[in-house]
């Protein structure tokens, strides 16, 4: 198992390196410079380029760039907030996005699992069909549509929730954004868990545990659920990605001062450092989540943990 | 006396699992099959018998050794001609009739698939005629062509699998445990069918199984496999009347007989492989008769020919000896 984890960590490290490389190359290949102000003369431009070290050979810049990125020094913002360190700009926002994202993941998993289990147990009944409809809706309707809809109905019309997200009082104002973000997760987890459970419940070891005299609830909780969760864990990784991308628009809708809004802004004004920094953060988050999923996988499923050693 | 249809020489099929571990599924086996004969390959799980069948039909690439089919070498790299030779002349019937038929294809589509690949010159009508003819040969009605696998019983599905193999007019059929998944009375039906088809069409067959009594019924020659080696090989009657290798003896002693009074008294003999320290790689093939050979070292061969099986066979009639190494 240690070997397995070690392998996974090495892969993660290599992936981060490749991400850095890719981002750097994209940056290099993009036309134009951050300094497109026409009032600058060529001479003045050269001076500025030298100042920011933009005229040094490519390899040198790459190494310097890697060093800085990994230290968390993302340079300074060229256009949005002139000369402000990017890390400072991100600082406050990262927390907001992460916290909303985490809440959405947990909520999504919790509700998704409940729906999935109920659908599987009540398979074939109207309850199952109803859950399926919710699941299809959750998967098909984009999160920002939910966001707009819930904003309009629950915040504007019914006034149950505030319209704008308030970072200093996140409680109530965070409800709608989190729910909108989590819809896709709920739906996917529910569908996955349902089909897995149906298959697991038909297997012979479930029949044996019933023959052991266990009550149905014990059969399901002790044997059914654990075996069904394994493939759900696999799906968690990509779901987290979805959350990250979904947050871009949802943040805009609820005026949440998170990474998403900043990201979009920075792209429109070519503020390279900010764009690179946020891309990097998103990518690293994803790699870490996948690593955690892989490790979790080996913990839950003894077959994966032990398979490399061969039968005893 | 024509040359044998199939010659296998020192075939090895290894599978690399990871850096440290290679499974030697088949570790150096040799045998020949004469035209029109049935060769029974017997062994338990892990013996390598199924792997052997798959290597012959080139579902795997043999690790080393040679396979000659009708005089042509088919174990190395296959060029277009030899590949065609293999695909049209060697066919396989699989074990699980539920799993080996595509549930989304009709009987017509499944059975004619091989024809479509290797004889594209045939029209759809010509193919259908062939399919109906082969279905009749296996005892199914031509009306079944448009049905799906789930509409048939296990025995019928196995017949469809056989039809799929026969339509290619192969010279060699490899039947990999074709009856294990079937009910007892259906097993008899399918085995009778195989025997009849073989006689009528002159097909050579390799019958892979773990059920010794069926193997004896259908085979002319038998090879007994254990852990990737053929430990004993010979004409059917010889193997059953004079088994020499302790594994063969233990297999034979394990065959249940529907004779209650005797069966209750009978105790199977356990093959103490690990305890005995037998190493198959050290053995050679010793002749028991012109058609019967055993894999053994000279010392082992002497002992076993004299009936001395101490340390290799046990009497399993109390719990202690029921505790075996790997089982």
């Amino acid at each position: 198992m240690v070997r397995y984890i070690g392998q996974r960590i090495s892969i993660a490290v290599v992936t981060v390196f490749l991400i850095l490389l890719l981002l750097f190359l994209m940056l290099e290949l993009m036309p134009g410079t951050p300094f497109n102000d026409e009032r600058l003369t060529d001479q003045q431009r050269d001076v500025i380029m030298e100042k920011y070290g933009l005229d040094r050979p490519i390899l040198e810049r790459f190494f310097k760039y890697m060093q800085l990125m990994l230290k968390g020094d993302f340079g300074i913002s060229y256009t949005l907030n002139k000369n402000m360190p990017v890390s400072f700009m991100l600082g406050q926002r990262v927390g907001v996005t992460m916290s909303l994202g985490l809440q959405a993941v947990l909520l999504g998993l919790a509700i998704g699992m409940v729906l999935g289990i109920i659908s599987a147990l009540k398979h074939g009944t109207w309850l199952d069909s109803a859950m399926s409809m919710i699941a299809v809706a959750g998967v098909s309707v984009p999160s920002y549509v939910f966001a707009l809809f819930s904003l309009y109905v629950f915040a504007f019309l019914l006034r149950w929730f505030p319209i704008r997200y308030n970072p200093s009082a996140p409680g109530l104002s965070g409800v709608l954004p989190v729910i909108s973000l989590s819809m896709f997760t709920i739906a996917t987890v529910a569908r996955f868990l349902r089909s897995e459970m149906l298959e697991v419940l038909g297997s012979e070891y479930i029949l044996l545990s019933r023959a052991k005299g266990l009550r149905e609830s014990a059969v399901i909780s002790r044997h059914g659920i654990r075996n069904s969760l394994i493939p759900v864990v696999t799906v968690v990784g990509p779901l987290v990605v979805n959350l990250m991308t979904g947050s871009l628009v949802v943040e805009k809708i609820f005026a949440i001062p998170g990474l998403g809004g900043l990201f979009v802004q920075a792209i429109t004004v070519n503020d390279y450092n900010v764009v690179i920094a946020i891309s990097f953060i998103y990518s690293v988050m994803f790699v870490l989540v996948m690593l955690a999923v892989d490790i979790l996988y080996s913990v839950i499923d003894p077959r994966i943990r032990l398979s490399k050693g061969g039968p005893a | 006396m024509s040359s044998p249809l199939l010659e296998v020489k020192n075939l090895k099929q290894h599978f690399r699992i990871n850096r440290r571990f290679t499974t030697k599924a088949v570790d150096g086996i040799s045998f020949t099959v004469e035209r029109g004969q049935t060769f029974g390959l017997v062994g338990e799980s892990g013996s390598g018998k199924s792997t052997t069948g798959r290597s012959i039909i080139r579902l795997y690439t043999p690790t080393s050794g040679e396979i000659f089919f009708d005089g042509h070498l088919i174990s190395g790299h296959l060029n277009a001609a030899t590949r065609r030779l293999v695909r049209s002349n060697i066919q396989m019937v699989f074990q699980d009739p539920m799993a080996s038929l595509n549930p989304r294809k009709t009987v017509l589509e499944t059975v004619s698939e091989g024809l479509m690949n290797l004889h594209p010159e045939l029209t759809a009508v010509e193919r259908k005629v062939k399919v109906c003819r082969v279905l009749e040969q296996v005892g199914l009605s031509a009306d079944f062509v448009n049905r799906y696998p789930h509409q048939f019983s296990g025995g019928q599905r196995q017949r469809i699998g056989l039809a799929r193999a026969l339509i290619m007019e192969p010279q060699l059929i490899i039947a990999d445990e074709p009856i294990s998944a079937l009910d007892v009375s259906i097993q008899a039906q399918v085995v009778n069918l195989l025997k009849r088809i073989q006689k009528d069409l002159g097909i050579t067959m390799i019958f892979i199984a773990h059920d010794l009594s069926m193997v004896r019924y259908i085979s002319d020659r038998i090879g007994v496999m254990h852990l990737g080696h053929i430990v004993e090989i010979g004409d059917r009657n010889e193997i059953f009347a004079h088994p020499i290798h302790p594994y063969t003896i233990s297999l034979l002693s394990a065959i249940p007989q529907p004779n209650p009074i005797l069966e209750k008294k009978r105790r199977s003999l356990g093959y103490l492989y690990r305890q005995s320290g037998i190493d198959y790689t050290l053995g050679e093939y010793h002749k028991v008769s012109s058609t019967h050979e055993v894999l053994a070292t000279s010392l082992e061969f002497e002992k076993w020919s004299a009936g001395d099986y101490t340390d290799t066979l046990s009497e399993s009639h109390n719990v202690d000896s029921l505790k075996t190494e790997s089982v």
Partner: protein
Amino acid sequence: MESKRVLSIRDLEISFKTTDALVRAIRGVRLDLFQGETLAIVGESGSGKSVSVKAIMGILSSNGSIDAGKILYTDPETGEEFSIVDMSQREIRSKISGQRIAMIFQDPMTSLDPTMTIGKQIMEGMRYHYQVPVQEARRKAQELLELVGIDNSAKRMKQYPNQLSGGMRQRVVIAIALACDPQILICDEPTTALDVTVQSKILELIQSIQKEKNLSVIYITHDLGVVAKVADYVAVMYAGRIIEKGSVEEVFYDPRHPYTWGLLSSIPDLNLEEEELYSIPGNPINLALPFQGDPFAPRNRYALNIDFEQEPPLFSAGGKHRVASWLMDPRSPKVERPASLERRLKEMREEIGRNE
């Protein structure tokens, strides 16, 4: 010593509601099981052999229902009686399954939970039903592993099913079944998925445990060799009814029903040369479709006209031997067993003589 009756089944009828039709899977079964005895229920797919025992264990699938009949379980030690048909599946599972009557299934590869340790799976029943404290349960589980012939029991307790071979897994399944000291053990095709050399060891293991604990065992199987080895009594089922039953000697040495003849003849005989194996023509009947008379009649080359109109009742052939065939009726024409079968039976008798 009087042998006590532990299980009594009378006129049992079970049906299943499928999307197409109502399938009457069990159409009147009568069986008895006594303490210390072994009963084998023989049949092929569709005979209903597994269904009756699932009803006893309370694990009938949700679309199945017991329509009529009685299943009475009597605890041989306390004399307590349980009328299983009157109990809900939940009740059966809380009082009977796993505790007084235990079951093992066919495929050891799929009978064990792949994500739970062996030890935990053996201990589960004890802890659940009897609240046995963990330490004691662990000790008992280890003892059970030793009893079923698994070495290194302490190490094995912590292992997972995928680390064991097929034969060992089946031993674990037996250990699980024995965990709560049941009085009846039901084995549903326990050796079909195992290698031949392992099969006899597992059967011998069950036999020795049976003797030690005076258990009653029911085997469900289609393998007549297994029946010959372990059974005291046999019941042959076809299309949801018992068509022949009796002591194993009565049924094997003096079979009277054409289906039984067919089954016995389908096995290749190691001692005789045969040109062609006798096989029962046709396929097992589809019980979802209506039929008249004896469901075996279409495949029965000895069928009489009446077989197509009325299903035969059970006739007595002496002793405990009962046969559901019109051929047993004194009014029907005399029919001889097929010659090849007769030869076989003769050969079997001679072989017994040779082995005395």
